[in-house]
């Protein structure tokens, strides 16, 4: 019997392959820009750069936890070991070929990260984790190919934008105007994710070209690179799922 090889997502189209790449922990996300640790902390807005992490319980090694096989099996994250509080990062992704989508982000996180909790909606996607862990996660999410400076943005509240037409300068609409397109072509955060003004502008780099966006996107659109409404294999897979679930509920004793 051939060894089972996890496929992560059906299909051989560009979008399917991009989804597979984002979800497969063996494939690293491509780093496209540099955002300093301090700048990540500023955008998140949970603590001032350099400020100590607030804790909600003593470090685990001081707590004298009872013997437990699960505790032995699961290695705590650094934030958990330290007793950090849980904080969040939330992203909005435009439907005009942003590199990721809420569900793909959720699946990606579950495959690639530990100690996280995600929430998936249509217009925003949130991830929560212990504070020092979420900062590392957020840095990845800002620096790699799952982020596009004009079409993605971190928004804690007043998130609308994912489905709205783009501004004349190509940026996704944001009622709070947390980001702006600089004269140098870079996108800058001028407010943190919850909308509080920053003391300095934080660059997250230049928007990608339309061609590059189409190559990297994870949304199936008929006006995408392959002009296909959805990958045919994905469509058949969904039909199979729907049919199988229906039959199971019909009590066929299968």
């Amino acid at each position: 019997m051939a060894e089972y090889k996890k496929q992560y997502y059906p299909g051989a189209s560009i979008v399917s392959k991009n989804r597979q790449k984002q979800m497969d922990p063996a494939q690293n996300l491509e780093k496209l820009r540099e955002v300093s640790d301090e700048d990540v902390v500023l955008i998140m807005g949970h603590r001032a750069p350099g400020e100590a992490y607030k804790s909600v319980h003593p470090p685990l090694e001081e707590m004298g936890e009872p013997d437990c096989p699960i505790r032995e099996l699961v290695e705590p994250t650094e934030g958990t070991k330290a007793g950090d509080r849980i904080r969040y990062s939330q992203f909005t992704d435009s439907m005009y070929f942003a590199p990721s989508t809420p569900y793909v982000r959720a699946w990606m996180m579950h495959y690639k990260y530990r100690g996280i909790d995600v929430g998936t909606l249509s217009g925003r996607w949130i991830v929560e984790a212990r504070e020092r862990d979420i900062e590392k996660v957020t840095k990845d999410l800002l620096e790699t190919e799952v982020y596009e400076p004009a079409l993605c943005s971190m928004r804690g509240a007043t998130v609308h934008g994912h489905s709205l037409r783009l501004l004349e300068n190509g940026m996704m609409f944001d009622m709070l105007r947390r980001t702006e397109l600089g004269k140098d072509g870079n996108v800058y955060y001028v407010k943190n994710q919850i909308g509080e003004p920053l003391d300095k502008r934080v660059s997250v780099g230049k928007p990608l070209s339309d061609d590059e966006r189409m190559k990297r996107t994870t949304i199936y659109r008929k006006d995408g690179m392959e002009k296909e409404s959805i990958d045919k294999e994905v469509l058949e897979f969904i039909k199979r799922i729907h049919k199988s679930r229906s039959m199971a509920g019909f009590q066929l004793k299968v």
Partner: protein
Amino acid sequence: MVEDKKFIKALSKKFTEDPKSRTMTKVGLGIDQSARKREFKEWGEKIAKERGISGYDPMVHLGGIPLGQRVLMPYKISTTDAYCEGDDLHFVNNAAMQQFWDEIRRTIIVGLDTAHNVLEKRLGKEVTPETINEYLHILNHAMPGAAVVQEHMVETHPGLVDDCYVKVFTGDDKIADEIEDQYLVDINKLFPEDQAKQLKEAIGKSLWQAVHIPTTVVRTCDGGTTKRWSAMQISMAMIDAYRLCAGEAAVGDFAFAAKHAAAFDLASILPARRARGPNEPGGLQFGIMGDIVQANRLYPDDPARASLEVVAAGTMLYDQIWLGSYMSGGVGFTQYATAAYTDDILDDFTYHGVDYINKKYGGIGKAPATMDTVLDIGTEVTLYALEQYEEFPTLLEDHFGGSQRAAVGAAATGISCSLATGHAQAGLSGWYYHMLLHKEKHGRLGFYGYDLQDQCGSTNTFSIRGDEGAPLELRGPNYPNYAMNVGHQGEYAGISAAAHYAVKDAYVLSPIVKVTFADPSLKFDFARVREEFAKGALREFYPAGERSLIIPAR
């Protein structure tokens, strides 16, 4: 062809820009772009001055950034030429929507056969058409809150309760002929011939009273009051009409019949955690909604149109009033609901399904009710709907929430599957298939609620044993998986109705509900739901529940 799209007219008016452009140019206009928001602001200032307590102040929104940083879109009520602002579709601002619900809540259907048996067999009274007409004369005096039998009794002001009355109906033409026109809901006149025949056969010789107590009463009390108020006045009218002893035990039989044995609540009571009495929206089954709405009477050959009127009615009642206010509160739920009955979008998607059904299956109600049919029509309608959002950025912006898109796309898919097969469970299956496909195609769906019921819905679609599921017509807002999720219930009502309208059934679940709400004397016209909502939005609807007779003039 762009010109063929039903939603283009609305989009062009809403955005006054190319509906296919991906660029928005009107940014940062604030609330001044909206007449309604300006009106609200003026009233906010006026009220604050008069009462000395601050109120509506749009500048506290987001610390000084008011609504309207993009276009504050007007809305076209689907199939009408009426445009209004979104605010006009909140039920607080729309008298027609209020009356829609008041009409249902204040209605109880009570059989007369039990009472007549008691009169004839136990009390030895003669029941004739003349006595029935006299009883109805007395009842229409008493039901609004007037005294019969008693002496020295307070009464309600007739001018405050002019919406209250009782009519009767029966499936027997001979009996119906003997009832005075003013008291009869005339099935033969109100329904197309084929529907009248079905209804009369189902109702038979039974005689039913359609009781509508005063709007003011249910607004002050609740839906549970309706049958109590009705039963008290029915019993008193019986005593008067048939000269009965007020203290005799047999009179209790009238009360029992009017409250229980022969009483048909439009909605059942709810369990403690959502506790409401009967005749409150949480207990109103989807099939009953399809009978309350009368559009299939008006459009017997256009079942899609009739189904969409049910969706409009259902989303307004279940989303805006039930979930949006009884169960939650605030204003957000209106935004979900209106997507299903504005801008001709759901209409466009649904009629695309109808065209496909006609071409592929040779007409409505002719496709086999199989999974293959669901997958075929489901794929066609789902991909069509989602591609429209891709092709028309203003359409996507109109339905800016994924929940709106999911609800509308799935409704069109579900209704299409129902129309094709004449089977509500096939329609429901289409709904859930849409949800799975939608999620995968765009990588997003709705709010968390769509992760609950829509990801496991395929599994319970065909589970119809009591503890596991139910035929869609018998499900309702309190069906376990449906109990807390906006953007679903009204659509389910439309899907269940579509299956029956497709095969020209005169009613979905209940012939007596269908006849009761056909009555043209009701304040709200249940055959023209969207037109009535539009009248409410334009402030042209006259509701019941008047209080100006007993308050100082402004």
